[in-house]
């Protein structure tokens, strides 16, 4: 997993609530047996029209917006457990997703793939969306060590929460497998004396 410390970037505003995993990556693209290539199909049915042409109304297709931060509406990533959703977002080039609420499984999947979910207040989210929409060049800074997200050239900034263990993992690029495999002895001891 890649390390994450700080990120300064412009952002793409996806001002939609309840973005579910079927929108992030539709099921028909889940037939691959590796993790590559999902970025090409992220938000597939929003990015492309039914006839396969590009939907120029969709925010990812608007040339004024770019950057590696995705700012989305409330309850992002609900639905299925498919980690393909996180792979697709990472594959497209995002490193941070901001929302006022994340679905549990998506949040875990994101963290396991070096994608930082930043949960902010409703007010901050709406300020953020407004700033980006009125000036697509707005730069956002995310600092994991300090757990802050700020909008440059403004006094808008907010603290965000992250599990201390997960933070260490992200900062160092470790993942859970390393930890668990190193604790096998303890797991075997548990198996030997389990009470149920």
């Amino acid at each position, binding site marked *: 997993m890649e390390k994450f410390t700080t990120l300064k970037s412009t952002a793409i505003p996806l001002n*939609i*609530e*309840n973005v*579910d995993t*079927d*929108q992030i990556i*539709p*099921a*028909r693209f*889940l*037939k*691959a*047996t*590796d*993790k590559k290539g999902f970025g090409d199909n992220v938000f597939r*049915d929003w990015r492309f029209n*039914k006839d396969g042409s590009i939907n120029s109304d969709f925010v990812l297709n608007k040339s004024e917006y770019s950057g590696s931060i995705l700012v989305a*509406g*409330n*309850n992002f990533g*609900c*639905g*299925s*457990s*498919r*980690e*393909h959703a*996180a792979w697709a977002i990472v594959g497209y080039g995002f490193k941070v997703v901001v929302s006022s*609420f994340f*679905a*549990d*499984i998506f949040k*875990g*999947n994101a963290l*396991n*793939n070096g994608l930082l979910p930043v949960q902010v207040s409703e007010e901050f989210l709406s300020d953020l969306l407004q700033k980006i929409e009125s000036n697509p060049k707005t730069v956002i800074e995310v600092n994991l060590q300090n757990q802050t997200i700020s909008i440059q050239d403004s006094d808008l900034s907010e603290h965000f929460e992250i*599990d*201390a*263990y*997960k933070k260490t993992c992200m900062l160092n690029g470790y*993942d*859970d*497998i390393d*930890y*668990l*495999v190193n*604790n*096998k002895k*303890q*797991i075997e001891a*548990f*198996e030997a004396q*389990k*009470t*149920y």
Partner: protein
Amino acid sequence: MSKKTLFDKVWDSHVVSTIENGPQVLYIDKHLIHEVTSPQAFNELEERGIPIFRPDQIVATADHNTPTLNQDQPVKDALSRQQLKQLSINCKKNNITLYELGHKYNGIVHVMAPELGITQPGITMVCGDSHTSTHGAFGAIAFGIGTSQVAQVFASQCLLLTKPKSLRVTVNGKLKNGVLPKDVILYIISKLGTNSGTGYFCEYAGNVFEEMSMEGRMTVCNMSIEMGARGGMIAPDETTFKYIKGRKFAPKGEEFEKKVAYWKSLPTDEGAVFDKEYHFDASDIEPMITYGTNPGMGIKISENIPVEENASFKKSLAYMNFEAGESLINKPINYVFIGSCTNSRIEDFRAAANYIKGKKKAQNVTAWLVPGSKQVEVQIIEEGLKDIFDNAGFQLRQPGCSACLAMNDDKIPQGEYCVSTSNRNFEGRQGQGSRTILASPLVAAATAVEGKIIDITKHLN
């Protein structure tokens, strides 16, 4: 001694260790896998040179990406065939039991495992699939995980997790005629919304669930994820023990009695405190349908769609081509799907057959019946339900996830409505541009017969 919930008892007995200021290491008893979310986890382990730690605690099935016709023939779609083949290779290489396509125990992962007695009270169970919550119907802690976590369980039979908070939904009273378990859960989600359960594990309590069959309890727990909860649970009782007894992997003889004694100790202690509680009155529940693009957008079939001003609501109705404030009664419907891990057990087909018997499906309707497993398929035939379906013009297909997520050929065409017994009505869930209306097997059967949505409550009384 402090009072504990069912969830606390099962969770606490599975904690291997706790990281200071961090998550706990939770031991996983049973790991279910399928073709779509496992290949990358197998690759990960292979790349890192880590062996599978406890292959005998893993059971695999092929379900998401399988055809529901001609299962005895090679799978036509090359990518699907490759994915299924990869699962077979991975299982063989790692000594994992696999019920592949055509096997007498093959089926949707959440239908086949309970049926085989793999799912038992008091255990922890995971699968790379969010509807793993289904198994909580037995009083197990069961939840869906991502593929990185599948790899973690492969490597260590454990997961690093922070203990969720606890939530209890109590429904007491008498259910009305024609109200099925599906209506109960659609009602709860319509009241609580799709993220009320996020961060929580939910226990369902009250006489409504106590009186429900195991099939019904599974339908309810299945959709816990639709209100954001990681899982749902129902206290194990005589109904649970009776269901498990005699199944293939159930404990036998004296061992079974010992287990039952333990299982009886699991229900929530009187006075145990939940972080959040909700109460509903059973008599307020009616047959339900959804009108929007998330499962929280549900109404009683006799009610009108609400009127709301927010943008997401409007976007959703525009996608569905419905008007705020209108009724769905008499809306013509061309597709009906009875299946998915929510409603593809024998009881669901009995409920449908009971209504369909002696009637014919409407001409305009394509009606697919997809059993949850090979065993359910056999039961449908043995109980004579297939004849009822055949005579009525319904098509009984072979088991799998099918049109629930439309990864195979079972897709609802662009723009068409489908009254479906599945669990998700997201945009395009059943095929690009398809419009899903969630309902119980009874409402689905009635829609197929009439070719339009009817007020089932009027027909029953």
